Structures are given as structure tokens and as C-alpha cells.
């Protein structure tokens, strides 16, 4: 199984663990992640406005480059995934945006949304299969009570992301089961951690993150997993409790597969 891989800026700096373990696990599971050459920062937030073209270009470059490689495009960071998937959707459905982007980029072959964008978790679920992962686990995390923290970006908008049921997702819970731990389901798992508001208004981020953590803790979670560096940061830094560990899901996977 070979995919184009878009790591994103954060995974090259503060979010190295997400990337490092992701690559190790992929290798262990027989998945080849070929990092796209010359990728640029996706911009971290999806430019929602229809008249925003320049801010969509780097995502389209990555998409077009993946198309030219003839492979599906895998992302790992939730934010990158959200931006690239939503821009891809624009390229498929909004003729005006597609036209203007293509005019700007002047690619040899205009890009019209041909690339399939997959999140790393989708590769695990739909290509590798959780059963295969279960079979590959060397150190099952038996006894651990782990809460999935989806946050916003993987799930929403559901009509575009098509990742999982946006109000009742199961992919991370299935993942947690596959690595031998017990999933803890709590209502705040798909509520916002505060996101980039942390830059300007720490108080607001504290409110959001602690509500998430408190709910998870009340439900008995000892660990939360996430796919987003910013979520990880907020929950750890602004969550206000240290009795619940917050880790990247790839780190737990690496632990379970014995490649950490």
C-alpha cells in the first residue's frame, strides 16, 4: 500500500511525535508513506470565503502533486486534513473556485478534485483494517481506559469530511479497542478545545479544554488520544488537570505495535 503523505508544518516542529510514530507504525503495518516533495503549509484553517483563492493554493498544489503521483493523499494532522479535504471539495463542486484556482496555478493539467484525501485513521480503518491491526499488536494496552478526543476538524462539516458520523463517531473507539484498551465514551469528545483562541485569549481556551477533560475524567478515562497538535497543546496546557494523560493516537499505536 503506497500513499502520498502530507505531514504539515507542525509535524515537523512541535508535533514531531505525531509524525514520527505515525511513520514507524505505517512501516510496521506495511504502509508506504511517500512524503510529497515541496509541500507548503496548508494555512492551518480552511478559508471559508468563496472569494478566498490565494489561501487555497497550497492545498491544491499538494492535491495536484498527489494526483500526478497517481496515489491517494494521506494526512495525519487534523487541521491539515480539514483544510485539504475541504479545499478538495471546493475543487470538485465549486466551478468558480476551481476555475480561478486553476487560472492562478497554471498547472499542466488543471486540477478538478481527482485526488482522494484520506486521514491516517481512515487508512487504518479502511485499508489496513482494525482486525489486521489487532493481529499485529504485540503489547496490547489492556486495562487502559482511553477516551477518544475527536475535536472539530476531523468530523466537521460532516457533509464534506465524510469521515465518520459527526455526532456519534466510532473510528477512534474502534482504534482503541484494536490496540487492546477500553474506549471511554463521553459527550464532549467532539466539542472544541478552544483552538487558536489560545493565542489571544487563554481564558477562553482554558474554559473549553477543561470542560472536555472534566467530562472525560468523570467518565473514567485515564488517557485521551488526539490527532491534532493544537488539541494536544490545549488539553495539556489549558485543561487544568494532570490526572488524565493526553497523547497522540500514533504514539499509543506505536506502543501497542512494539515499535516505540
Amino acid at each position, binding site marked *: 500500500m503506497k500513499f502520498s503523505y502530507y505531514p504539515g508544518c507542525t509535524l515537523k516542529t512541535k508535533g514531531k511525535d505525531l509524525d514520527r510514530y505515525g511513520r514507524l507504525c505505517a512501516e510496521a503495518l506495511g504502509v508506504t508513506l511517500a512524503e510529497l516533495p515541496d509541500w507548503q503549509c496548508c494555512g492551518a484553517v480552511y478559508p471559508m470565503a468563496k472569494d478566498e483563492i490565494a489561501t487555497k493554493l497550497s492545498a491544491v498544489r499538494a492535491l495536484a502533486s498527489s494526483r500526478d503521483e497517481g496515489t491517494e493523499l494521506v494526512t495525519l494532522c487534523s487541521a491539515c486534513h480539514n483544510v485539504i479535504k475541504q479545499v478538495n471539495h471546493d475543487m470538485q463542486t465549486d466551478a468558480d473556485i476551481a476555475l480561478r484556482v486553476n487560472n492562478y496555478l497554471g498547472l499542466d493539467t488543471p486540477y478538478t478534485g481527482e485526488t482522494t484525501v484520506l486521514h491516517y485513521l481512515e487508512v487504518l480503518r479502511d485499508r489496513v483494517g482494525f482486525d489486521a491491526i489487532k493481529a499485529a499488536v504485540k503489547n496490547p494496552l489492556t486495562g487502559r481506559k482511553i477516551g477518544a478526543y475527536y475535536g472539530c476538524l476531523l468530523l466537521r462539516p*460532516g457533509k464534506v469530511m465524510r469521515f465518520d*458520523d459527526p*455526532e*456519534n463517531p466510532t473510528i477512534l473507539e474502534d482504534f482503541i479497542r484494536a490496540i487492546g484498551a477500553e474506549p471511554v*465514551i*463521553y*459527550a464532549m469528545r467532539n466539542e472544541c478545545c478552544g483552538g487558536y483562541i489560545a493565542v489571544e485569549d487563554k481564558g477562553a481556551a482554558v474554559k473549553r479544554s477543561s470542560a472536555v477533560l472534566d467530562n472525560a475524567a*468523570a*467518565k473514567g478515562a485515564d488517557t485521551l488520544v488526539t490527532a491534532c497538535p493544537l488539541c494536544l497543546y490545549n488539553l495539556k496546557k489549558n485543561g487544568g488537570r494532570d490526572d488524565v494523560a493526553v497523547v497522540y493516537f500514533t504514539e499509543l499505536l506505536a506502543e501497542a505495535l512494539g515499535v516505540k
Partner: protein
Amino acid sequence: MQRIGVFVCHCGTNIAGTVDVVAVAKALGQEPGVVFSTEYQYMCSESGQQLMRAAIREHKLTGVVVCSCSPRMHEATFRKAAALEGVNPYMVEIANIREHVSWIHKDMAEATEKAVILGRAAIAKVHLNAPLQAGESPVTKRALVIGGGIAGIQTALDIAEAGFEVDIVEKSPTIGGKMAQLDKTFPTLDCAACILTPKMVDAAQNEKINIFAYSELESVKGYIGNFKAQIRRKARFVDETKCTGCGICTEKCPQKKVPNEFNMGLDNRRAIYIPFAQAVPKVATIDANYCTMMKTGKCGICSKVCGTGAIDYTQKDTVIEREYGAIVVATGFNPIDAKVYNEYGYMDSPDVVTSLELERLMNAAGPTNGTLLRPSDKTHPHTIVFVQCVGSRCDETDERGKPYCSKICCMYTAKHAMLIREKYPDTDVYVFYIDVRTPGKNFDEFYRRAVEQYGVHYIKGQVGKVVEQNGKLHVQASDLLANEQLHIDADLVVLATAIEPDKTARSLGTMLTASMDTNDFFTEAHPKLRPVESPTAGIFLSGVCQGPKDIPETVSQASACAAKVIGVLAKDKLTCNPCVAHSDELLCNGCSSCEKVCPYGAISYSDKEFRGPNRTTLIRRVASVNPAVCQGCGACTVACPSGAMDLKGFSNKQIMAEVDAICK
């Protein structure tokens, strides 16, 4: 050559205000075959019709063209008038110069010219019209009612009352439907069971009514007056004729862990069960999916305890065939699955319930014997939040909800709130609403009582998220009038989930060739004037299968539907629409192209002998149309390459004559 009379209607100033009717009458009077042409104030009036009839007599007219309003309006009127003078009604054609001319054009010259052209087209058609005789077909004097809820029961009772036989086919083990599950009914608060169960008993005891419970419709063939239906009587593994409904088997059955659908899965039943005490027929049914005997061959307790030997583990489904003159669809509704709205926590907490689940929680015969207890810890809830419009009134593009208003939720929520406040005055009840819709007799008064007398907190706003934490349901909601976000720690959250047609409706619609809308509600023949008939002749609509309704509305529609069915069954013969397809056997190739596109199965084939050249005979396969089944759509006429298939009243030549007249 036809002798055609032309009658141009002024329709007061409706037509004459924009169309020069005198000029139209004059111009059309010049057309070949037209021997009389006039105009009149109101052709549809009694004197207008007299004028037409006099002209028919006087000028020995063989064909009539009326330039007037839409044929959808008065075609029947003018056809009747012509028939009274011995002119075949199908020799009358209407040129629509009101809706299609005078009402949409302002310029008199332009409108007059168009009216003349439409008149010419009608004249060209009448030249090719042939008198048509409506055929007759006999009527089987029995009705089939599909669905045994309150709608089906009421329709069946009314039909039986008129002296006709009725069969009710109900897919669950008992009739009663959703109403049997309800606690009280708005706006009178009388107990649902108290008013429903006597009707169920009436139906069971009425000798004109046959109840086929635990049965499903397998196939339907035929047409109005002459339907043939196959009904699958699913095996109950209990002999209905022997079972007395004593219930001993249901007490002794060791398999106790079967989710009880009658109580919305809030408690369990046995593998052999009678859905509820007043079930009709009151007969036990074995659920083969759970019965130990059926699964492993070991147990047989029910058989041992049964005093009448009614248990029969070897029973098989049987399919019976019955004939009917009319079919009533009364398939009702189901609430949508609340799990797609998990921002309200339905999947996360048992204390988030749907309104129908609440009905069971409040019902004296329900899992808590009528005491309102939270499903999670069986404690008394003190703060209850009701969420309205869960899945109703959504945008067309919404993937979770329905675009329509479910109509009943505002009222039953007021009922629930009121009943709870009355029984448990220490309870705080909040209702989050978008609009409170209470059109209905004594409805708004009822809602106001909930607010004013019972102190229910109605809040204009919606719930955005329900978070279960430490035994409380943290409800985050908006109060739009206060422009606030509210945070309520509730003990119970009740979702007023949208209702949708029963899942079987779509396949049933296909089987009956009855049309449906995009929401799978059956379409009525006319939204205002024929609300209880399907456009497919002989199919009638009762209850929520046609659109959301409360009980009083359902019952009125059910009775209206019965009246329509009785109208059919009371006739010995039915006249058919004579504008049907017919096949010219001399031209027919027998290729079956027409048969494939016929939605009614009206076309059949037979081998016929034809004279060939040199006194030989040839046997050819040719199509023939059953005029009683054909509805006259004309799909076959275009599928036929040889032109053998044509449509009476809308023949190839007639339509081409209209085309020619318009393009001239």
C-alpha cells in the same frame, strides 16, 4: 365530415377583457367543418349550456369546441351537456383561452390571435375524434385495509358498517398500532387505551371484518373493482384457533431477555408473548429469533403448559389469495431514529428518551407501571427538558432530518409537560421550541393551560448539546428572546423526534403503483379536492401514510376514506376511462416493447390467426389491452415501432393535427 359548433365563452370579463371573443367566434366560424360559431357571457351557466344544447339540436352538430377556461375546470360540464343532446361526450374539446391566454397576456391583438390558434387546434382535433364508449367492469364487494392502527380500524369499521366485507392486514401480532402505545390523548387527556381498545374489540367481533394479524401483503394485481392480493400469514407457531390468550405460556417461558418492542425496548418480554393485555387477536406468538426450542430443539415448556395444545413449533407461513374491489393504505408512521442526533446524547445516556418512549414511561401498563422514573437509575426526575423539532422542518439538503413539520409534537409535548407537572408538582419542566403550532380545536387553549396553569417553562430557542456527567444531563441551549445561552442540569431529556412513513410504504407504493412524494408519503389524487384517494384508481389513503396527522384528523380521514371505498363497493359495475390504449392487431408485431413500459400490466399477448397471401393462414403473436386496467398514459404508444398501439382520445393523428394547426 364533422359538423362542428364553436362556443366562445366571455367568462364575464375574465376572457372578454383581453380576448376579442367576437373576433374569435367569427374567425373560427370560417374553419372547415364549423357550421355554427357563437360567443356567450358564461358558457358554463345553465343558460350557456342551454344555448349549446339548442345549437346542437338546431345545427345537427356532431362535434363541439368550447373556447373557455381550462378543461380541468369544465370539460365534464360541457361533455355532460352534449351527451344530453345525444352527442358522444368525447366529441367535445376545450380550447383553454382563459388560463392559457386571457389571464397571462395583456395585449388584446396578441391574445386574440393566440385564442384563435388554440381554437383551430381544438377544431382540428375534433375532426379526428371518434365517439368513445366507456367500458364496464364488475366490482368485488370486499375491501382490503393495509395496516391495523387507528386509521385502518376506523376505515374498516365504517366500511363494515355499510355492509361490506373488509380484511385488515397487519404486520405485527396485534392490531392497535401506535395509538395502543400512547398514554393519554390531547387535548382532552382521555386515556388512549380506553377509547381505542373498544374499537379493536368491535373490529374483532364484527362479522364483516377479517383480521389478518401477523401478516404481510405479498403481491397485488388487478385494478379498481378487481384486485387480487396475496397475503402472507406469518407463522406464529401458535394455532390461532386453539389459543385462548390465557397467557400461561408467556409467564412460564424461560427466555426472559427479549427487548419488548411494545415498550420501546425499555423492558423485556419473553420469547413467547402477547404484546399487551388488550391485544387483538389475543393470541400468543413465538419469536423464533429468541425461542430456545426453535433454536436448539430443547425446551418446549410453553407446549407443556398450554392447556389447549395450541403450540405448534412446525407451523409454516401460508400465503392466501383474496379478491378485493378497493384497497386502503393505512400504513402509518414511525418516529425517526434519534441516534443520528447524538448531540442530544441519545446514544450516550438512557435518560435521553424519545417522546414515544416517554409515553411508555408514563403509561400505567408500561415498564414502570406509570410512575415516571429515569431509565438509568429508576429515580424520580426533577428537571426535565423537552426538545422540539428533532429532525422536523429541516432544509431539503439536510441529511438527518425531514423537510416537513411533524405536526403532532407541539401538542403531545404540551400534554406530556402538563401531565408531569400535574402528577409531580416538584418537577421543573422546560420546553425548547422554535414555534408552538396549535391549529386545532381547543389546541391553543390546551397549550396555554400548560404555560399558565401548570407553569411549564416554554423557551423560544433550541438545545445545542447535551452532556451527561455525574448522573446529570448538562443541557446547553439558547434562549433567543433573552439572547442568552442557558445551561440546565436536567435529569431527563425528551426528544420530540420527527415522524416518517413506515419503512414498508415505499415498496407498497410500488406494488400498488400508487404515487408517493419524495418523503415517501402517499400522494393524494388532488391535494384539496380528493385528499383520501390515491391517483391510482381503487387505492385509498387513510391516516399518516398520506402526511402527518393527529388522532382526530386521522379518524376523520379514515372515515372519509371509508366513504370513498363504500362509493366504489356500492356499485355493481364501474365505468372505465375510455381514453385507453388499443392495439391494431393487423399492425402488431408482438414484440413486447409496449408490455415492458406498461406500469399497470394492462397488456397481454395471444397467438391469433391471420389470413396470409394466397389463402394461407399465418399465426402471429399480437398484443391486446385490457381497457379496465389501462389508465391511458400512452407510454406504450411510443414504445411501439409499428404504430399498432394508439391511444383513444389522444391518438397520433389527433395530436399531429393539433401540432399542424398550431404551427400553421
